[in-house]
């Protein structure tokens, strides 16, 4: 196989061999004679060695040796053809889509601010509300015989900030990562999501901040699991691989992963592409209601779908299914493993999906029946704010949360050899993450974003995140065509 990166060191190397100990991919090894050997073809550019080198002696660069430049076939195209010719395999990748020609619309939208005609608000001086409630809104106010208002509010999730953590299963990520996410969610007052890997017993204490997932494999799902959560998410699809199922290799199903998923050790865990008990919106409604029955109507039910071409009518169907919250995961959403062609070519960007769904639900006058969570490539607080202005109630972050814990997005999760100890089950690697320190970093990240959100909102003269939801007047586009502006429902800058 062609090497992609080249490892070099300069004269400042003191041969402490730290890099060899840190490298989990076997790209740097220590030789018998105390020297270092570089195996360039195994390097994933995860930067673990460079980060830990005490003298800064290590350099990872793209390899200069590339195929002859061709206007049609890129270096990657040729490498992949060679790999498939050799193995006959479906290309397996991880993290989010890398479609170079698909625009990131967040970067083409600009936010508004108040000048003269309405005052901006200083969040350091004045209260600024970032709490969000997710769930159905009652259609009418009910009163009892004496005219007192009766509480007919369906169950809700209460978030102190509109940022949640995306579904990442135990198996795809380590237990330490889930511990960090759960502890951070509790401290912030938001939610983390188990993904389809069951809920490890040590995480039951975080149940008030836990969302459990029911996906097509139904791994680890039982009555106690459903009742051990603040909300239950039915996963139909995810942005990185819409329309296909999941496959956790038997190699990762060891020890506690096996116990938590309730899958025998070493056996592959396959999640079928569809839920075979859901072939229609009516079937979905039935699963939503059966979950509500099993949990005594005390918990909101979320339906998670990937952003695909007909997302607006799909969301309309979900809103009518009795679900309380729709979670939409866009084209750039990450994954622990997905076929590369699917990851890079299926689905639509989250920005267009939120705008289309919000618009459709408003037109049908059912927007208040559901809340919308947007995810799939949210990189910072301004992405979050733009998603909310387009119509989302909250956003969830997966890749960004992993970055806070050390991930350098080398996109090698599917190898199970994560050098930062996140997407692996190897005990020597998972111990590289201290869950307490990890939780602290996640809390810092969300607090920082929340502060930025307050500042941006204040600048716009808005003091409540709910007033920003679907407020497309706050957005203007640049470098967008008329059709894109129409779908996003925003004007061009200067309009």
């Amino acid at each position, binding site marked *: 196989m062609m090497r992609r990166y080249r490892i070099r060191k300069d004269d400042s190397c003191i041969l402490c061999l730290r890099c060899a100990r840190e490298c989990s991919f076997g790209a740097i090894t220590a030789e018998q004679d105390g020297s270092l050997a570089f195996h360039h073809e195994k390097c994933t550019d995860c930067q673990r060695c460079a980060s830990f080198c005490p003298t800064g002696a290590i350099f990872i660069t793209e390899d200069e040796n590339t195929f002859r430049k061709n206007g049609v076939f890129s270096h990657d195209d040729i490498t*992949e053809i060679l*790999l*498939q010719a*050799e*193995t*006959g*395999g*479906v*290309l*397996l*990748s991880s993290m989010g889509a890398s479609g170079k020609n698909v625009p990131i619309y967040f970067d083409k939208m600009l936010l508004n601010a108040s000048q003269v005609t309405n005052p901006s608000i200083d969040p350091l001086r004045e209260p600024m509300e970032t709490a969000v409630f997710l769930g159905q809104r009652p259609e009418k106010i009910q009163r009892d015989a004496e005219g007192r208002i009766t509480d007919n509010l369906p169950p809700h999730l209460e978030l102190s900030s509109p940022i949640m953590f995306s579904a990442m299963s135990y198996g795809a990520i380590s237990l330490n990562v889930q511990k960090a996410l759960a502890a951070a969610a509790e401290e912030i007052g938001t939610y983390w999501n188990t993904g389809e890997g069951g809920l490890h017993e040590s995480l039951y204490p975080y149940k008030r901040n836990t969302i459990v997932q*029911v996906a*097509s*494999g*139904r791994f680890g*799902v*039982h*009555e*106690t699991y*459903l009742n051990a959560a603040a909300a239950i998410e039915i996963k139909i699809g995810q942005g990185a691989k819409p329309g296909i199922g999941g*496959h956790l*290799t*038997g190699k990762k199903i060891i020890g506690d992963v096996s116990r938590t998923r*309730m*899958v*025998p050790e070493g*056996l*592959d*865990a*396959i999640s*079928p592409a569809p*839920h*075979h*008990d859901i072939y229609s919106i009516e*079937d979905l409604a*039935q*699963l939503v*209601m*059966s979950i509500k*029955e*099993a*949990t005594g109507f005390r918990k909101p039910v979320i339906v998670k779908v990937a952003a695909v071409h007909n997302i607006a009518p799909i969301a309309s169907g979900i809103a009518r299914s009795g679900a309380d919250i729709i979670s939409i995961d866009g084209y750039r959403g990450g994954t622990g493993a997905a*076929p*590369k062609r699917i990851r890079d070519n299926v689905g639509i960007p989250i920005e267009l999906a939120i705008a289309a769904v919000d618009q459709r639900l408003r037109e049908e006058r059912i927007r208040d029946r559901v809340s919308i969570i947007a995810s799939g490539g949210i990189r910072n607080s301004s992405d979050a704010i733009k998603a909310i202005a387009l119509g989302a109630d909250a956003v969830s972050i997966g890749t960004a949360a992993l970055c806070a814990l050390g991930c350098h997005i080398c996109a090698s999760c*599917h*190898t199970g050899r994560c050098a930062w100890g996140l997407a692996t089950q190897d005990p020597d690697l998972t111990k590289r993450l201290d869950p307490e320190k990890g939780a602290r970093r996640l809390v810092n990240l969300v607090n920082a974003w929340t502060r930025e959100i307050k500042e941006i909102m204040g600048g716009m003269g808005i003091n409540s995140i709910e007033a920003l939801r679907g407020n497309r007047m706050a957005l203007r586009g640049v470098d967008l065509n008329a059709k894109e502006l129409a779908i996003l429902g925003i004007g061009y800058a200067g309009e």
Partner: protein
Amino acid sequence: MKVFDIRNNGLEEMRKCSGEEITLTGCLGERYIGCGMKDGILHVEGTPGNALASYLDGGTVYVDGNAQDAAADTMNAGLLAVKGSAGDALAYGMRGGRVYVLGDAGYRAGVHMKAYEEHRSILVIGGRAGSFLGEYLAGGIIIVLGMGYEGRSITGYFCGNGMYAGTIYLRTETEPLNLSDKLIRRSVGEKEKEDILRPIITDFASVFSIPAEQCIEGSFIAIEADKSKSYSQLYAAV
């Protein structure tokens, strides 16, 4: 034993009686009966609706007539016994416990059933099953007895497609239609029949008070995943 009529009491009253023996009368398509039941015994009279005994977690549910779609969905433990036939998507994603249907089952019966440690899902169908029986089977045992269909096909198309663990036993000499080349079909020897099938089928027969011998006589074939053709071989990591 307590008796409730679903037309007067709904499911609310019944839910309060955990651990008791209850008869529920007057059912006419009401959904979610026995949903998440952890203990106790429930006799269902009439025709229950969809999602009967879904997430069943230890209770026992007897149905006098037919069950509809999605019965025993994501069931974890307990027993569902249906004297008539069951609709589509029976026992989807079931992990443990027993589902016995004396009559036939519709399409997609036993899809993605599993087993884990003390949990072993068992599905026995007295008559025949529709297409897609036991697809994605990840563990557990499915038995189709074909009573009343002697000499005819007792499964539809795509039996066991995508299965990677567990076993489907069919009391037939007829090859299932379009069986995938990733599956192995073998005949069941006397020892396997005695050790594995007899205890289950005897239990099945006693639940419905029918002679066990009538259910077990004759030859069985077993369908299992071809372990040499695993999913992992499909991929090449970039």
